[in-house]
């Protein structure tokens, strides 16, 4: 698909150059003289069609420098647990913005992670919350003051400005801000929300192979509020976008290694639905012990039971649990680890827990306020297969250092 777009693109450039050279009006005059108006009109239509075709492909018409040497890009590392840049390097930048992702890539992320929802006009965007209150300046936009409303989301009434009530153009007039007050505020008001497509191009344009890890986020809620004219759902649009950019292949296949991708969701039915559409690897996210699945209303106990894991493993290749359910804490000290990882591994399921953060308020006392000690525990003691971290650079540094020395 890409090659076709490129060849269309290059053909168009050739045409443009040719036309400029011979000057369109002069040509048309000459053509009309020779062949008559109908052929002239046909010529114009041909040019227009080619132009629209190239534009509609959605890729730049000239190959980006990084695409030229596709085969020599440094491949994805697969010898140690994956470093997932959770919402980009959001320890430093406002989450899910272009700079957050680019910094994460620079810092060594294996995968950049995003949450995909839909705008009022059905465009897929990268944003975590159903509402815009905590991560954008929407509250300061007087023009949207009347959009504040209340919806039920997974059984809870939430008030705010909702993504599903804004068109893409309106969303992109907002500016992102850092969610946590104790993190760097200097980029507030600088960056817009990006689309799923923009996120994908950041990954594809990296100078080494960088995987993507998008989430089908709040599908029940989004499908309730956003309707596509062709009757398709969020899950369909999601997979279409991936396929448009050439993401395909099962885990560790040749195609997958070229463009690695994990699809994640808290909703089992969404994952099962899309397994009919793509063989890309999927990860089943698991929330806290008190939260029910949004689509099937199942409890934590049920979805982590042997029988359920046995069932879901036909559709997913791993789980993404909240780390405090894997090793529960008490008074900020770790208790004994549960057997979740062992059972998952026994069924051939990878485990990618979330979320690792450097701030001492997120670190249990066993780790002595040292994020590297926490990485060490989860990687070497618990033995997980990937980590969602807000601090890509720290995890990368830890992995680089410890891969070059034997265990301490």
């Amino acid at each position: 698909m890409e090659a076709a777009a490129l060849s269309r693109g290059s053909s168009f450039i050739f045409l443009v150059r040719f036309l400029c050279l011979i000057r369109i009006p002069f040509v048309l005059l000459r053509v009309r003289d020779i062949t008559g108006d109908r052929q002239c009109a046909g010529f114009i239509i041909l040019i227009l069609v080619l132009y629209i075709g190239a534009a509609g492909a959605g890729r730049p018409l000239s190959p980006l420098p990084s695409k030229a040497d596709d085969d020599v890009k440094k491949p994805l590392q697969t010898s140690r647990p994956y470093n997932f840049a959770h919402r980009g390097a959001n320890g430093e930048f406002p989450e899910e913005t272009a700079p957050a992702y680019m910094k994460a890539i620079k810092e060594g992320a294996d995968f950049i992670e995003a949450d995909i929802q839909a705008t009022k006009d059905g465009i897929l965007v990268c944003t975590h919350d159903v509402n815009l209150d905590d991560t954008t300046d929407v509250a300061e936009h007087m023009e949207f003051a009347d959009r504040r409303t209340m919806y039920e989301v997974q059984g809870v009434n939430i008030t705010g400005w909702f993504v599903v009530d804004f068109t893409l153009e309106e969303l992109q007039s907002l500016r992102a801000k850092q969610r946590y007050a104790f993190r760097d505020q200097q980029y507030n008001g600088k960056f817009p929300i990006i689309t799923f497509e923009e996120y994908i191009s950041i990954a594809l344009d990296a100078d080494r192979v960088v995987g993507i890890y998008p989430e089908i986020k709040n599908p029940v809620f989004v499908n309730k509020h956003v309707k596509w004219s062709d009757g398709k759902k969020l899950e369909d649009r999601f997979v279409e976008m991936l396929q448009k950019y050439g993401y395909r292949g099962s885990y560790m296949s040749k195609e997958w290694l070229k463009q690695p991708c994990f699809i994640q969701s808290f909703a089992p039915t969404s994952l099962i639905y899309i397994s009919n559409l793509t063989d890309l690897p999927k990860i089943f996210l698991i929330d806290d012990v008190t939260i029910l699945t949004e689509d099937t209303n199942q409890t934590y106990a049920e979805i982590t039971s042997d029988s359920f894991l046995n069932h879901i493993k036909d559709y997913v290749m791993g789980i993404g649990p909240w780390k405090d359910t894997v090793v529960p804490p008490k008074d900020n000290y770790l208790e004994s680890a549960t057997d979740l990882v062992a059972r998952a591994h026994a069924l051939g399921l990878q485990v990618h827990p979330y979320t690792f953060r450097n701030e001492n308020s997120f670190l249990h006392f066993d780790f002595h306020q040292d994020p590297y000690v926490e990485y060490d525990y989860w990687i070497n003691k618990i033995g997980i297969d990937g980590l969602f971290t807000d601090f890509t650079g720290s995890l990368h540094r830890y992995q680089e250092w410890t891969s070059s020395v034997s265990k301490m």
Partner: protein
Amino acid sequence: MSSSIMGPPCSILFLLLLLVARAAARPLYPLPSKVDNGERQPLQTSRPYNIAHRGSNGEIPEETAFAYLRAIEEGADFIETDILSSKDGVLICFHDVTLDNTTDIAHRKEFADRKRTYEVQGVNTTGFFTVDFTLKELKSLRVKQRYPFRDQQYNGKFKIITFEEFIAIALDAPRVVGIYPEIKNPVFINEHVKWPKGKRFEDKFVGTLKKYGYKGSYMSKDWLKQPVFIQSFAPTSLIYASNLTDSPKIFLIDDVTIPTQDTNQSYWEITSDKYFDFIKQYVVGIGPWKDTVVPAVHNYLQEPTDLVAHAHAHNLQVHPYTFRNENQCLHFDFHQDPYQEYEYWIQKIGVDGIFTDFTGSLHIYQEMTTPPHPKDGGNDDHVMSLLHKIALLVSPYEKV
């Protein structure tokens, strides 16, 4: 002569001997660790010193035995402490002049009437002062963690320890561990505590070190056996102490607004070239507050000052304080990553020692990036160290 005549004098002699032994305050038999003194792993001197600031107080209440034992376990090169005095002139390990922030004094009804207001370095301070409590009374208190965001589980469990107890912890370690005691608030202490024969705080301080065999200039054979740095904010105390011992001394420097407690000199004066020229006759280095070396604005680092270059030009070491893991103590340049902060100060600024509340983290950082030189004949260590060095050479050339 029959034994009956010799009996009583013998018993008395025996009793006297016991008294002498007790007074010497060291056990009469050598501790297990003292027997194989020559076999102990020596102090590392190939990379900046890991100075356990008040012990491993990120985890355990500061300046307690447990905090120091933990620091040694975690790999400290030196354990650091602040020496003050009790009312009866016993030197103790304690940082604040008052007991309020780090002990349960507030809950002790028997001491309720001891609250006082004194002037300390020009500031009127109210609280319960160590100089108003005898050692016995101080030992009845229990220490607590100073910061609420740190582990509170050891509150009420440990006591204040004496300078001698601190020294014993260092000497009894399974490897050579240095000590880094501070002559703390000497002006205030000498004002409130009087020792017999006109001795001063500084005399008692050095006397204690000598009693336990601390001697020798920096890097001498004696010093390497029992490493020590004497530190103080008061230049006259350091100069006075240099007449008593050749153990290396470090001149501590406070924030830019604080004058020295004894000579009332400003930050600018004591960091001037002229002053370094003078003080270097008495000290081997300086211990500045790190935000004066590289100032920060809006939690971002500015351009470093030339203090380190200055100091190094005068052959003075630089040991900045204090490094802490908590994100509120880390400037944004470091992305809430304490290891990045270590990296900056060690690689970029080039300091010679680091006072840290988190001994373990600094040790891990140093082990991962600069493992110590292998001992001669240690084959496995040597191989691993070599492999590591090779890896370090290769990794900068890999793209990410």
